[in-house]
């Protein structure tokens, strides 16, 4: 039983008899969908921890314009994901057990082709990958896509450096007392430490540590920062539990701690407003704006709670420009990097909320984009 290709001729033949009796519809040919390259700027990758099982997890790929699913990536054990800067690769740091919930553990870094959504290659990494609610800066890429940094937590903390070019582990960098890895340029990453400093580790072209420095950033006892910051052109922006933005420029040779500024007026603070959420910060680089998930009637223990309120700030002037309101409580934010940017919010039922940042309009909700949407990425 051979298949007949559906070509323009067949469609035309059908059209000629439309309205009355049709010729038999032709046999179909089975195909395989593929995504375009370069990737569309509004293609969203939603990291889905599937909290109700958390073994075989996924990254949902959704077109935020049409609110349609484009495909998915199958991951292992609440895997973090990150994108290469050249748009060609999704990296996931997967944890597999031979009997799914038990047996022999195998950790791998998997490189997925962004067009075919197939694994291009994988490399086994030390069985130390951190298992946390997935967040930015658990898995990152150097600016030139040469190295991938995997955060480990056993609970001793370290980073596994994977050489993307050689497709092998270059080494492991110990990070005593520090967490996560905030990439800075081609050969450096920072890590946030319990003493309120940033640890800066510099690598050579072989991925080996050649220098480490520390810079004091915050007071962890009296003004704790939320570790889930957001980067923009070499500068990281963090927010304190009570709404003060603390920037640090890691783009130069030496880190430069920026002047702190407040998200809130005294009146707003007194009225009970404060930041809170999971990935509670987003930056639209082409607009130079910062988006912050804000709570009314905030209490300290709500610092990771969802909200429907997003406040908009000018990154240069620190002025509040307005607010966005989501129809459903959201927990994790991401803004796209193009010049007609969208704000993407992962809502608490796994749906994706989409806002046009040029007009400030809520464009729609894609329900069931994920089961547990914890992080959103785009190229």
């Amino acid at each position, binding site marked *: 039983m051979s298949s007949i290709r559906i070509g323009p001729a067949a469609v035309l033949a*059908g059209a000629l008899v439309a309205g009355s009796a049709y010729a038999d519809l032709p046999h179909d*040919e089975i195909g395989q969908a593929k995504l375009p390259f370069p990737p569309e700027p509004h293609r969203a990758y939603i990291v889905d921890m599937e909290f109700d099982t958390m073994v075989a997890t996924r990254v949902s790929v959704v077109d935020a314009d049409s609110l349609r699913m484009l495909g*998915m990536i199958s991951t292992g054990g609440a895997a973090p994901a990150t994108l290469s800067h050249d748009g060609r690769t999704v990296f996931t740091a997967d944890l597999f057990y031979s009997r799914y919930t038990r047996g022999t553990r195998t950790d791998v870094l998997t490189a997925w082709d962004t067009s075919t*959504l197939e694994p291009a290659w994988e490399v086994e990494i030390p069985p130390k990958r951190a298992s946390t609610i997935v967040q930015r800066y658990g898995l990152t890429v150097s600016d030139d896509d040469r190295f991938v940094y995997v955060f480990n937590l056993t609970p001793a903390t370290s980073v596994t450096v994977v050489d993307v070019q050689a497709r092998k582990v270059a080494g492991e960098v110990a990070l005593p007392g520090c967490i996560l890895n905030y990439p800075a340029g081609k050969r450096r990453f920072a890590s946030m430490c319990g003493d309120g400093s940033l640890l800066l580790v510099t690598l050579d072209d072989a991925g080996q540590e050649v220098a480490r420095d520390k810079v004091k950033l915050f007071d962890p006892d009296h003004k704790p920062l939320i570790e889930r910051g957001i980067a923009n052109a070499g500068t990281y922006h963090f927010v304190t539990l009570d709404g003060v933005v603390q920037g640090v420029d890691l783009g130069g040779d030496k880190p430069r701690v920026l002047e702190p500024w407040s998200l809130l007026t005294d009146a707003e603070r007194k009225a009970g407003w404060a930041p809170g959420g999971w990935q509670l910060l987003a930056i639209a680089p082409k607009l130079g704006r910062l988006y912050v998930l804000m709570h009314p009637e905030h209490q300290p223990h709500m610092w990771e709670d969802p909200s429907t309120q997003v406040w908009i700030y000018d990154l240069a002037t620190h002025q509040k420009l307005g607010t966005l309101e989501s129809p459903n409580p959201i927990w994790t934010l991401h803004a796209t990097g193009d010049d007609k940017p969208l704000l993407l919010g992962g809502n608490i039922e796994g749906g994706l909320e989409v806002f046009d940042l040029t007009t400030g309009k809520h464009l729609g909700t894609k329900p069931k984009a994920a089961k547990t949407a914890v992080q959103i990425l785009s190229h």
Partner: protein
Amino acid sequence: MKLLDRLFERSTRRVAETTSRRAALARIGSWIVAGSALPLLLPIDRVAGRALAAETGKPGDPGDPNSCDYWRYCSVDGFLCTCCGGTVTSCPPGVEVSQVTWIGTCRNPADGKDYIISYNDCCGKQSCGQCACTRNDSEQPMYRPFNNNDINWCMGAKSQVYNCTLAVIRGVAN
């Protein structure tokens, strides 16, 4: 794979014969739309006439392939690939089509003809979870396996893990 391929072709022919009889019974009945919990959920009302709208944009192939009420889905049980990054006849990116499949007979409301539809499963990623749809218009018990949709037909792919289902025209039933 080649062996399975041949077994499938043999069976499809046999099935084509035995289903033409059942095709006479073909009805555009009610059906089931699955929610997140189960392959089977509560019946929904059919939107009368909707299936006749030429939403595919293909003459003679009316209806919305993203909807469980599209005519080709008369015997589907699973997630519609059209909602998962694929099309009615294309697997989503990175998901492999199974070479063995089950067969249904569905009446095309545009020409009144009964078509043999193969419901090829796309395999190698876990359940897509979108547009779950179960309709058993021409389904038969499992001792007629090639007419049964309770089987995971990913058995003909490299990985048995099920992602979503296509609805592929294989011919007219009589």
